[in-house]
């Protein structure tokens, strides 16, 4: 089974690879892994006034896992927290044309988004909003 052109493109030119400092203001970090295949994915969002202004990822895994997280960061940018919650793994599967054996990669990306959002929420809840 060959990878789709979109997967190959994301794999060769990953978007938004890198990371933010974890304790930076407005940054939410999601770190997830798939014990079955050993893939590890880190996805971070930077939020300003309820909107995701930037997103970065680092993934150690197969091409589909890299493409899924790369695509996820592209989609996250410019979305509000609420909109970001609605990103589903099935959207990623559709966009990247993932074969059935690679669906778990898109699940991993969705989990990473959720984890990053939860982390952001937890951080902002713990720290009352500063006066700007």
């Amino acid at each position, binding site marked *: 089974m060959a990878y789709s052109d979109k997967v190959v493109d994301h794999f060769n030119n990953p978007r938004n690879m890198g990371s933010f400092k974890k304790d930076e203001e407005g940054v939410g970090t999601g770190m997830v892994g798939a*014990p079955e295949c050993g893939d590890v994915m880190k996805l971070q969002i930077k939020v300003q006034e309820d909107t995701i202004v930037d997103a970065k990822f680092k993934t150690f895994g197969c091409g589909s896992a890299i493409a899924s997280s790369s695509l996820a960061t592209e989609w996250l940018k410019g979305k509000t927290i609420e909109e970001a919650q609605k990103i589903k793994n099935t959207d990623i599967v559709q966009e990247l044309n993932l074969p059935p054996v690679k669906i778990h990669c898109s699940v991993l990306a969705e989990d990473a988004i959720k984890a990053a959002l939860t982390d952001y929420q937890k951080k902002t809840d713990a720290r009352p909003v500063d006066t700007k």
Partner: protein
Amino acid sequence: MANDQPSTRPETRHQLQMARSMCWHCQSEMSGEYFCERCVKVQPVSKDTDYFTCLGFPRRLTLDPKKLEAKFYELSRAFHPDFYQAKSPTEQTISLGNAAVLNTAYRTLRDPIQRAEYLLALEAGSVKEIRTSPPADLFEEILELQDTLEQYRASDRESDQGRRLRASLQTEQQTLERRREEMESQLRRLFTDWDQLQDRGEATSQTRAERDRILKQMRDLLSHRTYINNIVNDLAATIG
């Protein structure tokens, strides 16, 4: 003979169960394991049969590889499609199916890690929340190592920087390999715990808690081991 004809027809809801305990050919009650004792026809291994049962071993995690191999060879001879060339199409199909199941069963149970993964999959349903939180520290470590690996791949290997990166990666590799060994010996201890629990065969609330503890720790160790295994393989492939 008393078992020639079942006196009543089985009711529909019992049919599946009945089908398994009945010879497909002579309809007599099955007493043999893989062959009907009455008409000597080969019987299909049921889809519900787990690999341990298929190979005639209890659900234990320390198996004698010699015994397992001997059993595999014995059953391979019994099911091998070559010996069914002259038999009916039904028997040929059954032998083919059984041989395939047998091969997968043996391949799975032969490897201690795969065996444990398989046992977990069998037992997981009965354990609440077997998946535990991901090891965040380990993930950070892995991602950092990947960065260093990336730098090393991009560097000139004969330069000072290349040599320095290589040396630090080698140290990391040794540390990780030691950690993997430590995990594997922890796993072996859990395997023994599991077997002892199985041998006792009690079902008190205490043994149930013990059982859950073993399965959960096993799940954790096995997944951590997979992560470490991947990065160690990557290191080995790059710095050889």
